[in-house]
């Protein structure tokens, strides 16, 4: 690799880590060859640790993951070779390994892994399905007359949760699922009507009392789904239910939207509800808007140049908006920085439209994305290069979510729901 052979350059490095004591190495600085990459440094650490089982590490230099050799890093950062580099090492995220895959009747268009017990998938045949962590089909929620586009899950008391499905048939359905830990069964609880066009996205509030839905009719509607409110006897307006002939007997009543947020000029393609009163929404009109739910006002707007199809709020402090849209770039905006109009980070690796992005709830650096190119990519935002790329689907991948901390679930236009497990997160 190095043409100069014997007289190769050395770089002074010092290794630090936040890992437990058994993974710490001495604080002294070493001279390592400049040509070393992540792999070489990992070998160095392993030899320093002298553990039996080799363990891969990732290295952070100045808050960014090392993806090149040390030499080119110095060149790109314009650092002097004389300085001592402080390198933080973290255990490398293992490769996602395919665990199982399940065939649906139609395209898998929505996945929600909020509940630790069950995974909800929505399908173009209008059926939402519940899956166990081991990948068994538990039950299906039938009722929509058109494709399900999005799902939301509100965990309730132990062993139960509410599943909200959004569909192109312009309705939201609230299902009460019981026995999620053993043998779940779902009953249609409510049908939320009000949107005049297909609903593209639904999200539950952190409190679990409300859901917000974005639709092709350019509005965002906030619905109350709180079980308490219903028990409290607020008189919800009865709506006709004759058209949902297939509706199970469990459907009791339909409510009107609590708040309608109007401001987008085109289809609201994605909504996310990160904090108690803040909804973020992305639209075909190229904008990402932040709404105050209580006041029902649009507090800030970020305008891009492309149609946005997917939105996820998360990251460090829950302030980063990851968006994907009708171009291959994932853009990460900082909602705290109101002055900036451009995206903070662009992640370019996909080859088609981005259909879904998802932050990990706890590992705030990690982000999942899927695209029309059929791949699921896992990103660490400290690096511009994806951590892992999984060719999960042969055709378009449509949705992805984390499930139970270290499982990646994705669905696509090949009717497959695929589970991938990270071996060491």
């Amino acid at each position, binding site marked *: 690799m190095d043409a100069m052979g014997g007289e190769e350059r050395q770089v002074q490095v010092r290794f630090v880590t936040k890992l437990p004591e058994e993974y710490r190495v001495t604080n002294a600085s070493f001279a390592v060859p400049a040509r070393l990459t992540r792999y070489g440094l990992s070998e160095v650490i392993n030899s320093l640790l002298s553990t039996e089982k080799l363990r891969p590490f990732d290295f952070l230099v100045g808050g960014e993951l090392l993806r090149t050799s040390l030499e080119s890093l110095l060149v790109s950062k314009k650092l002097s070779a004389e300085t001592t580099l402080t390198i933080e090492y973290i255990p490398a995220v293992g490769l996602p390994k395919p665990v199982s895959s399940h065939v649906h009747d139609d*395209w898998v*268009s929505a996945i929600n892994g909020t509940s630790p017990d069950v995974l909800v998938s929505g399908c*173009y045949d209008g059926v939402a399905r519940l899956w166990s962590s081991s990948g068994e089909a538990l039950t299906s929620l039938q009722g929509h007359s058109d494709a399900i586009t999005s799902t939301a899950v509100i965990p309730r008391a132990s062993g139960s949760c509410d599943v909200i499905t959004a569909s192109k048939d*312009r309705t939201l359905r609230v299902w009460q699922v019981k026995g999620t830990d053993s043998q779940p069964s779902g009953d249609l609880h409510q049908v939320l009507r009000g949107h*005049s*066009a*297909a609903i593209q996205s639904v999200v539950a509030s952190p409190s679990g009392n409300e859901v917000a839905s974005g639709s*092709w009719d350019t509005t965002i509607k906030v619905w109350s789904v709180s079980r308490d409110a219903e028990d409290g006897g607020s008189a919800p307006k009865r709506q006709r239910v004759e*058209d949902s002939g297939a509706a199970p007997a469990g459907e009791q009543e339909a409510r009107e939207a609590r708040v309608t947020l109007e401001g987008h000029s*085109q*289809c609201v*393609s994605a909504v996310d509800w990160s904090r108690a009163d803040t909804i973020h929404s992305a639209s*075909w*009109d190229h904008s990402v808007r932040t709404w105050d739910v209580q006041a029902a006002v649009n507090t800030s707007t970020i305008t891009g*140049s*492309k*149609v946005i*199809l997917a939105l996820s709020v998360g990251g460090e402090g829950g302030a980063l908006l990851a968006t994907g849209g*009708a*171009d291959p770039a994932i853009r990460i905006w900082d909602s705290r920085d109101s002055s900036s109009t451009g995206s903070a980070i662009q992640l370019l690796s996909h080859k*088609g*439209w981005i*259909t879904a992005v998802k932050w990990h709830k706890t590992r705030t650096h990690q982000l999942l994305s899927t695209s*029309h190119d059929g791949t699921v990519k896992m990103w660490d935002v400290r690096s511009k290069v994806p951590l892992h790329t999984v060719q999960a689907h042969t055709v*378009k991948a*449509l949705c992805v979510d984390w499930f139970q901390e270290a499982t990646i679930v994705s669905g696509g*236009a090949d009717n497959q729901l695929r589970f991938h497990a990270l071996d060491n997160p």
Partner: protein
Amino acid sequence: MARQGKRKAGDVREPSNGTTDPESSDEGDLLEGNASDDEGALSDGSEGGLVASSSEDEGALASEEEGSDPESDGEGESDEENEDGEIGEATEELAQAVQDYYLERDAREGEEAENGELVRGQEEVGVSGRGEEEERRGAGEERFGPHVDESDSSEDERPDRNTVGNVPLEWYKDEEHIGYTKHGKKIIKQKRKDELDKFLKQADDPKAWRTLYDEYNDEDIVLSKEEIAMIQRIRQGKIPHAEVNPHEPYVDWFEFEDKGQPLSGAPEPKRRFIPSKWEAKQVVKIVRAIRKGWISFDKKPEAPRVYLLWEDDFRTADKTANGLTYIPPPKPKLPGHEESYNPPLEYLPTEEELNSYDLMYEEDRPKYIPRKFDSLRQVPSYANFVKDKFERCLDLYLSPRIRKKRINIDPESLIPKLPKPKDLQPFPTTLYLEFLGHEGAVRTLATDPSGQWLASGSRDGTVRLWEVQTGRCRKVWSLNTPVKFLSWNPNPDRPLLAVVFGRSVLLMGSGTGNETQSEAAAGLVKLQETATGAADEGAVVRWQKSERAEGLEVVHKHDVAHVSWHHKGDYFASTSPDAVSTAVLVHQLGKQQTQNPFRKNHGRVQRVLFHPTRPFFFVATQTHVRVYNLAKQQLAKKLTAGVNQISSMAIHSGGDNLIIGSYDNKLTWFDMDLSTKPYRTLRYHDSSIEGVAFHRSYPLFASCSDDGSAHVFHGMVYSNLLENPLIVPVKILRGHKVVESEGVLDCAFHPTQPWLFTAGADKSIKLYCN
């Protein structure tokens, strides 16, 4: 001549002496004396005065004699009278003139004295002289009494108070007096100064040199500056009077030329006022000659008398008959010293050189090796003569005779200044989605007003509904007949599709709206009893319930090619090019009625279109587009496309700009405010254009062609009427395969995004995004 005149004057006066008073009779003698004294006076050193006086006399006399002086008209008359022999009168006149002269002279001298122009010495003299002069003047007045008359002809003459009479001066030499007054008293001489005094006076007086002594009158005369100048002029042989211009332009007081001789006082004859018949005849002749071309006014170019004999050798810049610059043939090299039969020694190659030549390649060898001969006689014939001549001819033959003029223009400057496509974003650039499913060439496509759905019709006889976001085929209608065209109802509340296949236009609900919209659509496509053709067999169309899909079919008598919705979504117009008089039919969906707006169509109708906002209707035949005003029911405009066959037409959302695609690869843009001629004609496609499309909101338009490509243009229409639309080609979108010489069959923009859908003959639909 002057002298002669004097003589004559003297002679004339001689006889009159007896008759007139003695003073005037003395004149002749005086003149004689003056003349005779000339020499003496000259020797005297004060000759100027006498000469001047004599010349003045002469001048006066001469002028009197010639009579050419305009100032002395009267004297001229007297001359004539003299000739006539009236001597007495002449003498009288003369006497008067002389008298006038003296009077004037006195007056002038007096003036001079008064003006103080005279210098002191003169004044001294003048004091005594003045009194005398005054006396004399008084005497003169007495003498001449009432005869005193002003005459300006004799202003320079001196008063001559000759008191001596006609006797020699010697007689008075020793006398105390000189002459007598008319009362008989002696005139006492001035006291004679001795020579010393004279000399001193001469030395003292600066005027001495111009002071003369007049013996007859016994007085000193001081010559004035003018008189001196006059004397000098005479000496130089010039005319004495400085103010006289001897070279005055000749004034021809009597014009004789062109006047005929002699001058006649006869009245103008009548013939001079009558147009001449002869002249009229001549004019007619000339006019006829001019008309017939016998007289030409073109001057023949004069052949230069001198010309270059060997002109050809130097004609380098002249233009030849074909307009090209003449290039002289290359000149042969002239022989030099080395080619002499007896060249100088230094030209002769040495033995070594000759040997080295043999080792050289033939082409490297010198052309001519000098040789020495003792005499010309020994020079052999030139061996290379034919070769040289041949080479010369070859040179002449191959030499360039045409100078190619290269136009020195920077090719960059020829490119029109257009903004860079990068600055005109967004526009579709990249293929992102493919809509696969059709089993035949996709003939037509359309997006629904919201932009959520895409409908396409194919030759496989199906209409498919696609979800734009995912590329999912949502619905398939199988019509079993190749679909030629389809169009969404532009009203978002009426989710209806108009599909053209065979002889029918099928109207069907797309199933994309909400309940109320779908119900409305379903209600519209239910056959009403009032529908045209339901009862009447002779109607141009028949509305009927469709058997192939849930909808309504409008069955025409001929094949339908195209359908176009009115922007409100109630009316639509169909085109069936084969039908002659019913080629364009306008249908009303609400009433299910059909009308035929045009009794006659000018040519084969290709497309029809409603204006997006105003009541105008566009009918495109093969070469023209006619714009009808529906409100006034008349032809508003006729646009000449300048193409062979129009294939497609699209109108800008503003309604003032129209683009037309043609089967002869041309895309033409009409600015209807500007002209009925194309504003721009774009020839970018290699094959016939199948479809054109305008974007509803972005300044974009596109054309698709059988060459398998779609071209995207930036077409900015400014609201300012003065600014012409800006058209910039921004992108060529390739991707479709050409199948059986068919490429991209239709294109449509997304209603809200800068995205372009293209329908290909390769059975695919492609979506290009920014």
